[in-house]
C-alpha cells in the first residue's frame, strides 16, 4: 500500500511536468505581457521597463523561460509573482480562505451528488420500466442537458423576478451572509452556510448527479443479471437484502472508478459557479487571472488544479482498492 502510494506520487512528477509545460505554452500564446501595459504609461522610463523585462526574463525564448520557471519552483518553491497584486502567485490564488472554500464546495458537491444519485439510481433499477423509473429517466436526461450556468441564471432570475425575495432570501450568491462572515463557528453559521451551498450544489453537481444516477441504475441492473443474485434470491433472501447487501456492494465499484473522472467537471462547474454566483474560490481567482492576463498566476492555477486532479484520482483508486477486495495495490 505504502509502496503503491509512493510510486503514484513519483509517477505524478513527470505528469506534473507535462501539465506545467502545456500550461506554460498556452499562457505564452497570450499577446503582450505586463510590461507591454507599462510601455503605454509615459511616466515609466524605458530603463525601468528594460529592468522589468530582464527581471522576469521576458526577453528570452520560451524554453529558456520555462526552464527558469521550473528551476525556481524546484529550487526555491517560487512559482512567480502576480503582475497584478505583486504577491507570490499562490498567495494571489489562495488569498483569504479561497482554498478552504474550494475544498468545501468540491467535497460537499461530491457528497450531494452521491447522496442524491445512488438512492435514486437504486430506486430506478428496482422499478425498472415502471413509472418511477421512466420519470427518473426523463428527469435525469433533462438534468444532464442543462448547463450549470443556466441553472445559476435561472436561480438569479427567480430571485430577481417572480419570487422577488432578493438574492439573500434564498441564499443564492456568496457562501455566508454578512453577519456570519466573521462570526465564530456555531449551528446558526453552519445552517447559514448550508443555505448558501444548495444553489452551488445545483449549479456544479446536478448534471453530474444525473449521470451518476444513470450509471448506478445500469451497473445495478448488470448485477441483477448475474448468477449470484439469482442464488441469493433462490436461497430466500429478502429483496432488500439481495439489493443492498449483495448487488449494490458490487455495483458501487464501477461508480468509484469514475469518481476520478468527475473531478475535471467539478473544477469546470465550480469555476462557472464562482462567476455566476460570485464566489471567492481558487477557481474564481484563476478566472480573474485569465481575465487580467496574469501569466504566473494562471500557470500556477493550472498546475494547482492538475495536482488537485491527480490527488483526487489517487484517492479514488485507494477508495476502490478499499471497497473492492479483488483489487490489490502493490
Amino acid at each position: 500500500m505504502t509502496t503503491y502510494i509512493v510510486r503514484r506520487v513519483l509517477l505524478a512528477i513527470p505528469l506534473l511536468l507535462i501539465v506545467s509545460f502545456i500550461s506554460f505554452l498556452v499562457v505564452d500564446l497570450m499577446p503582450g505581457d505586463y510590461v507591454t501595459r507599462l510601455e503605454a504609461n509615459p511616466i515609466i522610463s524605458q530603463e525601468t521597463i528594460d529592468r522589468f523585462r530582464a527581471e522576469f526574463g521576458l526577453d528570452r525564448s520560451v524554453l529558456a523561460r520555462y526552464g527558469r520557471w521550473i528551476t525556481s519552483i524546484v529550487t526555491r518553491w517560487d512559482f512567480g509573482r502576480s503582475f497584478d497584486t505583486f504577491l507570490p502567485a499562490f498567495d494571489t490564488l489562495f488569498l483569504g480562505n479561497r482554498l478552504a472554500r474550494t475544498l468545501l464546495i468540491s467535497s460537499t458537491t461530491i457528497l450531494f451528488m452521491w447522496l442524491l444519485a445512488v438512492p435514486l439510481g437504486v430506486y430506478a433499477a428496482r422499478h425498472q420500466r415502471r413509472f418511477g423509473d421512466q420519470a427518473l429517466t426523463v428527469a435525469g436526461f433533462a438534468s444532464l442537458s442543462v448547463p450549470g450556468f443556466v441553472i445559476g441564471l435561472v436561480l438569479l432570475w427567480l430571485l430577481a423576478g417572480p419570487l422577488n425575495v432578493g438574492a439573500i432570501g434564498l441564499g443564492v450568491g456568496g457562501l455566508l451572509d454578512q453577519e456570519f462572515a466573521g462570526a465564530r463557528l456555531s449551528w446558526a453559521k453552519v445552517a447559514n452556510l448550508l443555505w448558501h451551498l444548495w444553489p452551488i450544489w445545483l449549479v456544479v453537481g446536478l448534471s453530474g448527479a444525473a449521470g451518476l444516477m444513470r450509471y448506478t441504475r445500469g451497473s445495478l441492473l448488470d448485477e441483477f443479471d448475474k448468477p449470484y443474485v439469482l442464488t441469493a434470491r433462490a436461497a430466500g433472501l429478502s429483496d432488500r437484502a439481495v439489493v443492498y447487501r449483495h448487488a449494490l456492494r458490487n455495483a458501487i465499484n464501477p461508480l468509484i472508478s469514475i469518481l476520478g473522472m468527475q473531478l475535471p467537471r467539478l473544477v469546470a462547474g465550480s469555476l462557472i459557479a464562482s462567476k455566476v454566483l460570485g464566489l471567492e474560490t481558487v477557481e474564481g481567482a484563476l478566472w480573474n487571472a485569465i481575465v487580467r492576463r496574469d501569466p504566473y498566476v494562471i500557470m500556477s492555477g493550472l498546475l494547482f488544479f492538475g495536482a488537485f486532479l491527480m490527488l483526487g484520482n489517487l484517492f479514488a483508486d485507494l477508495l476502490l482498492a478499499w471497497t473492492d477486495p479483488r483489487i490489490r495495490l502493490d
Partner: protein
Amino acid sequence: MTQPQRGEGVDRRTGDKNRRVGGGAVWSAFRRHRLAQVGTAILVAFVLLSAFAEFLSPYTPSDQNSAYTYAPPTRLHFRDDGDFRLLPFVYKTRSVVDPETHARTFVEDKTTRYDVRFFVRGEPYRLLGLFPTDVHLFGVRAEDGSADARILLFGADRFGRDLFTRTLIGSRVSLIVGPFVILILLPIAALAGGLSGYIGGTIDVVIQRIGEGFMMIPGLPIVLVVGAALSGRGLSPILTFLAVMGTLAIVGWARVARVVRGQVIALRETDFVTAARASGAGDLRILLRHVLPHTTSYLVVTATLLIPGTMLTEASLSFLGYGLREPLASWGSLLNAAADVTVIGQYPWMLIPAGFIIVSVCAFNFVGEGLRDAFDATKRWRAGRASR
C-alpha cells in the same frame, strides 16, 4: 429459465426483441428505441431550422434598432373586437420612459395594427447559401413603409436586435460544434490508442504517459486561457473560435485513446491479424485496415456520447465570453448578454436561448443512449446472454 433461441431474445434493459443479428440488428434496435426516435426527430427539426434560418427569421442577426433596445417579445393578437382571427396581428409599440425612474417600458399603441403576413419581402439573403432571394416566411409591414412595424417573437437585446433571428442563426454554430470537435478528436484518439496498443513497448509507455498528462489538465480553464490568448491577436472571430474548439479536441483525446488501446491489444492476437501478417501486410496497413475498423462501434457510440458534453462546454465558454463572440452568435454567446442579475431580472426573455441548448443537448443524449443500447443489445446477444 429456458435458453433463448438464436434469432430471438428479449433484452431486459431495453425490452427489445432482437430478431436479427449483425449490423442490421443494431440499426433495427436503434430504430425501435423510443428515446432515440424522439432525439432523432428533434435533431432533424433543429437542423432544418438552422438550414433555413434566414428564411424563417424576419430580420438579419445584425439588424440593430436603438428604438427597440430590450423590447419584450411582441404580443400576437388573435382576437379582433371579440372575433377570432386565424392570422394574428400585432399592435404598434412605443417605448415610454418613466420621467422619475428613467425605466423604459414598451406599450402597445392600440390604434395602429399590423397584420402578420407570410412570404413577405425583406432583407436579401441566399437561401441555403445558394439561391439569392428576399422572401421571409413571415413578417409585418406598414403600408407607408415606416419602421414602426416590428415583430420580435423572442424580444430584442441591448442593441434592439431580434432575439428570434439571432437564436435561429446561432443554432448553426451550436449544432455543428459537437460533431466538429469530435471529428478532430476521434482520429487523434484512434491513432494514438491504435499505435499505443499495436506497437506496445516504449512507444506505448510514452503515449500512455502523455495521455495521462493530458487527462490531468483541467479542461475548461486551459481552453479559457487559449481563448483569452487568441482573442487579443486580431484573428477573425470565427478563426479564434475554431482554434479554441480545436484545443477542446486536443485536450480530450486521451480518455478515448486509452479504451481504443485496450481493444487493439485484444485484437492484436486474433487470427485475422495473424493471417494478414502472414500474407505480408505492413504494420500500418494492418492497423488501419484490419484492426481499427473493429473499434468502429465503440467509436461511433463514444462520438455520440461526447457530443452533448462538447456542446455544453462550448455554451459555457461562449457564455463566459471566451468562445464565440460578437457579432457572431451561438446559443451560449447569446446568454453571455444575460449574465447580469439586473438584465435577467428586467429582461427575462434573454434566457430563451437556454431552452434551445437544453432541448438540443437532450436530443443528442437520447440518440447516444439509443446507439449505445442498440450496440449493447446486439453485442450481448452475440456473446450469449445465458453465459453472463
